[in-house]
């Protein structure tokens, strides 16, 4: 007994901290693990709840229309990936590794689609290539007509490229920004040509980012709901199937089966990403030199043309959506008016709902995420529980929004569930959005915490200072810029997301992104575009405010972290 007592780690801070770790575990179980389990159970049972093995899947694969949509999903995702990744690769290369002008402008434009709901691209494409589109009608008869079959595969792919491009660009530009110039110097002294250096140094250096980009583009497209909903027409994909099974036919079991199918590529890609992340460490060291850009006229001219073209496409998408939203009746009455925006800012409208949900998700999400990351990274009790919590925290990364929304319906819309009371309230949407974007935020905070000396906690322990005081006085102030960053991330994504909340909203609490889908459904394209633009505007304002705050703070904390050598 005595030896057993001694084995307990002597730790004055232990009990209160262990309590928090247990609470964290419970929350993660109830928001992530148990709902997911519910999905898997539903997928292998019938309406009465009896176990039927893989019968749901068998039925799925024997329904030709459903199999077609699986193939459609794969096809669309492949084409999108094949186009978006090279575009993003050269765009990122241009901004990080060439001497072109206007980098700031190109970067801002490339990231612009991140602030828009994914339906906006589809809406803008309708304005350009739809039956009454600007291009289709040759600018209302000024030019010869130019008609393409927008609705269907072509429209979805176009719109998905616009949707995935900024994400791919972000990943790749980080990879290009962090390179070791010593390798380039070594290649040059060994007499390698530029071309050979590109293939032997540049490409291997970005290999893991490339894998990650391919995976992200594929999965984003595979699980996206917004674009196929708007420009899909009769072309069915898995995501729209899921929606039809669950909302249209109330066939929850089949919905669960489709949900599991949607989950498969996400889980595989998650595994690939984890493995390549692990292999990647060690590529860069503290002694790495930053890349130095050499002058090269041809390269710069070619890349400048590429960047200009991509930026022109993105800008024209946004501009045509703006134009469409302020024209009275497209294409018959082109007078400008703000009539489509009317009522959007009223007290209980979808836009205000979205603002409430997003602020709620951002405030609660950043506090919870920071606390969880702190407990997992910096506390010292319960190594096993903390490892489990870490794994659970990575899990939402593999959960497409549509599947997440579905599992939340299964889990919370069950009268026997103690948390059933949340269903139909604004809280379920807030929780769902937090879980949806939790993993990325969690990783952001974790890497910020890793930059802080791991001995801070030990130092305060030897001085007999309780852990929470060091958390409040040191760890929290040092992490503020990163907390603001995830605050913004939660806000922006909660504003634009449609996939998860479309299953969860109560009629009186409809979020703006869902309202866009409904408006488009009933043919109010202009209103839908107006709402999308309002969302972009809100996001841009939020971003400017946060950037202003965090920019100063970041410079200050980074100055504090500088280590002098002597």
């Amino acid at each position, binding site marked *: 007994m005595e030896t057993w007592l001694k084995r307990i780690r002597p730790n*004055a*801070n232990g009990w209160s901290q262990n309590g928090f770790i247990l609470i964290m575990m419970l929350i993660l179980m109830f928001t992530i693990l148990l709902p997911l389990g519910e999905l898997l159970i539903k997928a292998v049972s019938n309406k009465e709840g009896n176990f039927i093995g893989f019968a749901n899947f068998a039925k799925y694969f024997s329904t030709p229309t459903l199999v077609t949509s699986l193939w459609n999903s794969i096809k669309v995702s492949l084409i999108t990936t094949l186009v978006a990744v090279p575009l993003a690769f050269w765009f990122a290369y241009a901004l990080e590794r060439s001497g072109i002008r206007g980098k700031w402008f190109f970067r801002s434009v490339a990231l612009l689609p991140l602030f828009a709901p994914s339906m906006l691209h589809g809406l803008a494409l309708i304005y350009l290539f739809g039956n009454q589109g600007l291009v289709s009608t040759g600018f209302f008869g000024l030019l010869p007509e130019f008609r393409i079959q927008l609705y269907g595969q072509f429209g979805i792919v176009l719109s998905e490229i616009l949707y995935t491009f900024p994400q791919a660009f972000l990943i790749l530009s980080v990879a290009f920004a962090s390179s070791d110039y010593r390798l380039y110097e070594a290649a040059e002294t060994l007499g390698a040509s530029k071309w050979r250096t590109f293939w032997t140094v540049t490409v291997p250096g970005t290999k893991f980012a490339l894998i990650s980009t391919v995976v992200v583009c594929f999965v984003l497209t595979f699980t996206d709901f917004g674009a196929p909903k708007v420009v899909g027409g009769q072309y069915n994909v898995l995501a729209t199937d899921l929606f039809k099974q669950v909302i249209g036919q109330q066939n929850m079991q089949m919905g669960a089966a489709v949900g599991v199918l949607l989950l498969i590529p996400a889980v595989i890609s998650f595994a690939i990403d984890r493995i390549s992340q692990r292999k990647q460490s060690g590529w860069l060291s503290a002694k790495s030199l930053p890349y130095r850009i050499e002058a090269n006229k041809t390269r710069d001219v070619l890349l400048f043309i590429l960047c200009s073209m991509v930026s022109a496409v993105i800008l024209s998408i946004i501009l045509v959506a703006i134009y469409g939203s302020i024209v009275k009746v497209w294409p018959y009455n082109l007078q400008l008016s703000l009539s489509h925006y009317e009522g959007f800012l009223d007290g209980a409208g979808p836009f205000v709902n979205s603002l409430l949900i997003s602020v709620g998700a951002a405030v609660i999400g950043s506090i919870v995420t920071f606390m969880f990351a702190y407990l997992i990274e910096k506390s010292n009790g319960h190594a096993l529980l903390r490892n489990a919590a870490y794994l659970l925290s990575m899990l939402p990364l593999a959960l497409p929004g549509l599947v997440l929304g579905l599992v939340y319906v299964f889990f919370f819309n069950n009268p026997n569930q103690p948390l059933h009371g949340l269903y139909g309230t604004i809280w379920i949407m807030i929780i769902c959005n937090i879980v949806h974007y939790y993993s990325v935020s969690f990783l952001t905070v974790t890497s910020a915490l890793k930059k802080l*000396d791991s001995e801070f906690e*030990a*130092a305060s322990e*030897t001085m007999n200072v309780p852990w929470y005081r060091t958390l409040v006085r040191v760890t929290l102030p040092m992490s503020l810029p990163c907390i603001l960053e995830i605050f913004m991330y939660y806000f922006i994504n909660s504003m634009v997301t449609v996939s998860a909340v479309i299953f969860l909203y109560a009629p009186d609490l409809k979020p703006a992104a869902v309202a866009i889908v409904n408006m488009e459904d009933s043919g109010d394209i202009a209103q839908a575009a107006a709402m999308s633009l309002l969302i972009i505007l809100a996001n841009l304002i939020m971003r400017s405010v946060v950037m202003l705050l965090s920019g100063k703070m970041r410079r200050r*904390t980074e100055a*504090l972290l500088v280590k*002098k050598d*002597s």
Partner: protein
Amino acid sequence: MKLGYLSLRNLSKHFGKQTALQEINLDIYQHEFICLLGPSGCGKTTLLRILAGLEKTDRGQLTIGGKDITSVPAGKRNFGMMFQSYALFPNLSVSENIAYGLRNRLTKSQIIDRVDELLGLVELNDQRDKVPAQLSGGQQQRVALARALAFSPDCLLLDEPLSALDAKVRVKLRREICRLHQQFGMTTIMVTHDQEEALTMADRIVVMNQSRIIQVGAPNEVYERPNSPFVADFIGAVSFIEPDGGQQGNPIMAIRPEHVQLVREGQEKGRQGIVREIEYRGTHYRLVLELLDHQDAPRQQFLTVDLPTQDMATFHIKPNQKVTFSLLPEHIIRFDTVSNTSIAVG
């Protein structure tokens, strides 16, 4: 055996399958300055963290002044610890860092006085409002030291305190730590892998290797009478010599380079060797000789010799030249028993 002020009995520690410490027995007396010395990975930092209460031991007992503190948490031990990275709080000023552990122990005005006193002690009075990033490495180290001393700990634990500094600053701070130790007399335990640091600072050195204590003794004791080839080789330079019989097997005699004397040729009882390497060291040259057997054939056995710079010319030393030398018999180190664990050289 007389119990020390701080007494470690049979401590052992494993991390998973890896053994970090085994059978650690050590008595540390009050006011002593102890250096834990050993190659990296020998367990010395783990031992220090167990003393601090930051790691728990798997087995064994730890007492201070007769009181068992094996399961007393770090904060209740009243030990001051200075970390290798200093772990200074980057967003707090120098005086806030020093005052950090005082909040529950002293009143506000007492804290102000104590911080002033410590700032004077480490000569950082005019830096009090700066944050750590604005200080040099040496200054940061002194803040960390002041912070660890602030609550007058019973024991001061230092984890490689000087390893991050450049050579000049290091020597200066070495003296400063010794001065503070003499002034306050707190029992001090310092981890280091630098043998020179251990030799110059410690009252007693604890040499560790492969998770065990190999030898404990005063600096001159471990240097002049190492109990194993490992200790001889780890502290200072040494050459192992085979007995004249030329038996194969473990070397059981050794000699320090400064105890080998070159003698003029033709003198009595000299042995012969060929100069293979010459290294200039300022005050002396370090030569590596290859020994010759009685038939003047090289024996593939080498001996390191330190030769004062002014003697270089007298002996006309050139590479591949034959020289005669003798070993000072009173300085030959003999190992009576050679245990297998201590022979490995880190």
